[in-house]
C-alpha cells in the first residue's frame, strides 16, 4: 500500500462520490477482481446547518447515502461513501479508491479522475456564467423632494 496523503485521497474520494454513476461506469466499466469487505449498504446521513450560517449546528434533514468497502487481490483496501442509492456506484468508487493506492494510480487519475474533474469544472463554469448573466444593478430613483 502506498502512503497516499489524506489530502489526495480526500480529493479523489470526493470526485468519485460526486460523479454521475452513469458517467463513472462509462469511464471505468470493468471492475478488477476484488473481495467485498462491506456489501453496499444504503443509509442516511443527517445533514447539518448552522444557525445564521455561522452559529450553532442544527439538523436540517437527511440525505440518502450508499457505502461499500472492498479489498483488491493485491491487498489495497478501498472505501466509498456516495450520495444516493446506487450500489454499483459505491462498489465502483470503493474499487477505484483501492486502485488509486496501487501502482495503477497515475493511469487511473488520467483516465478516470481528471476527465470527471474537468467535466465538473465545465458544468460549474456554465452554471456560473448563467448566474452571472442574471446579475443586476439596482439603482434607487431620485425623488423630487430630495434635490
Amino acid at each position, binding site marked *: 500500500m502506498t502512503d497516499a496523503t*489524506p489530502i489526495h*485521497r*480526500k480529493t479523489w*474520494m*470526493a470526485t468519485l*462520490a*460526486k460523479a454521475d454513476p452513469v458517467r463513472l461506469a462509462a469511464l471505468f466499466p470493468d471492475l478488477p477482481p476484488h473481495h467485498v469487505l462491506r456489501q453496499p*449498504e*444504503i*443509509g*442516511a*446521513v*443527517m*445533514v*447539518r*446547518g*448552522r*444557525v*445564521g*450560517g*455561522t*452559529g*450553532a*449546528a*442544527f*439538523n*436540517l*434533514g*437527511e*440525505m*440518502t*447515502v450508499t*457505502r461499500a*468497502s472492498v479489498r483488491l487481490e493485491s491487498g489495497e483496501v478501498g*472505501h466509498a*461513501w*456516495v*450520495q*444516493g*442509492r446506487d450500489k454499483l456506484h459505491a462498489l465502483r468508487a470503493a474499487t477505484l479508491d483501492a486502485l488509486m493506492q496501487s501502482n495503477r494510480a497515475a493511469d487511473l487519475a488520467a483516465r478516470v479522475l481528471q476527465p470527471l474533474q474537468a467535466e465538473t*469544472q465545465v458544468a*460549474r*463554469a456554465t*452554471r*456560473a*456564467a*448563467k*448566474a*452571472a*448573466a*442574471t*446579475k*443586476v*444593478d*439596482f*439603482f*434607487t430613483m431620485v425623488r423630487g423632494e430630495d434635490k
Partner: protein
Amino acid sequence: MYVAVKGGERAIDNAHQWLAEERRGDPAMPALSIPQIREQMALAVNRVMAEGSLYDRDLAALAIKQARGDLIEAVFLIRAYRTTLPRLAASHPVDTAAMAVDRRISATFKDLPGGQILGPTFDYTHRLLDFALMAEGETPRSAPPSPVGGEGRGEGEARFPHVTSFLNRDGLIESAEASNATPPDLTREPMELPADRPLRLQALTRGDEGFVLSMAYSTQRGYGRTHAFVGELRIGTVAVEVDIPELGFAVEIGEIELTECETVNQFKGSKTEPPQFTRGYGLVMGQSERKAIAMSLVDRALRWQELGEDFTGAPAQDEEFVLMHCDNIQATGFLEHIKLPHYVDFQAELELVRKLRSEAMALQEAAE
C-alpha cells in the same frame, strides 16, 4: 379511540386496484416517468424533499407519482421510507458562504459585494398563463450567456460572504457564534419544550410550507411584528462533508441544493443588549424561497424571550403552538384518522346520549 376491525378485504383490494387505475389516468396518454417528474416538477420535488426531510430527488419524484400529485401524501411516503434507513453519520455543518450560488439577492443592500444575482426566478414575470407551453412548444435552451455585470459570480470556488457579516463589522447586528455542540434531533427524541433554537429550526425546516407561510404572514400583519427585511436570500449548491470512521478524515460525499434566508430585524434594545439589528434564519432543502423567508420570520418571532421582548399573545410567538402544529404528517395523521372506523367509541357515545335523554325526559314528565 380507533379499534381494529375485521372484514372487507375484498372491498379494500378492489379499492386499491381502482386507485392504481385512477392514478394512471387515461391509458391513451403516455405515463409520466420518474425522471420527467424530477426534471420538470422540480419545485414539487423540492417541497417533498424538504418536508419529507430526506434529500433524494428520485425518491421524491416517485412519491409524487405514487401519491397522484398529493404532496402531503408524498411527504408521508418519504417519511415512512426514511424510517427504514440506518443512520450512517451526521455531516459537518454545511458552509453556506461557500455555496455555488444560482441566485443571491438582498433587499437591504443594493450594492452588496459579489452583486445581486437574480437566477432562474419567477420574480418580475407577469403571471400570465403561457399558452405556448400548452402547445407543447419547446423552450429554447438559453444561448451562451453574456454577463451583464462585468465580472461573473466567478468560478465555482468563490466564496460569497453573508450580507450580515458586513453589518457585523460595525457591531450593528447581533453575531451568531459558532458552536460544535451536538444539536438535538427531533427524529430521535420527542420534542421537548422549551426548545432551543437548533431544535426550532429543525422543526420549521421540515414543517408544512403553508403553515409556516401563514405564521410568518401573521407577524407581518401585526401579530408579533418583528419588522423584517430580507437581508439576503441565496439559492445554490453546497458540498456535504462527512467524517469517514474507517479513515479518520472527512470526505465530501455529495452536493445538495439549499435555499438560505437571513432577515435583518429592527431591535430597540433591552436591559442587556444595545439597540442593534437582530436576525432571523431560514435554511431549506432545494429551491424553496417562500419557505426559507417564512421560516426566518417565524424563527425571529419565536426569539422574543431570548431578546427580552414582550409576549403579545401572538400565535407566531407561541413556541408550543408553532412547533407542535407545523408538521403536516403529524397533523394529517391525527386529522384523517377520525374517518377510520370508530364504531365502538361511537356506540358508547350513543348509549350515553340515550341515557341522558331518557333521564332528562323523565325529569320533564315528573315536573309536568
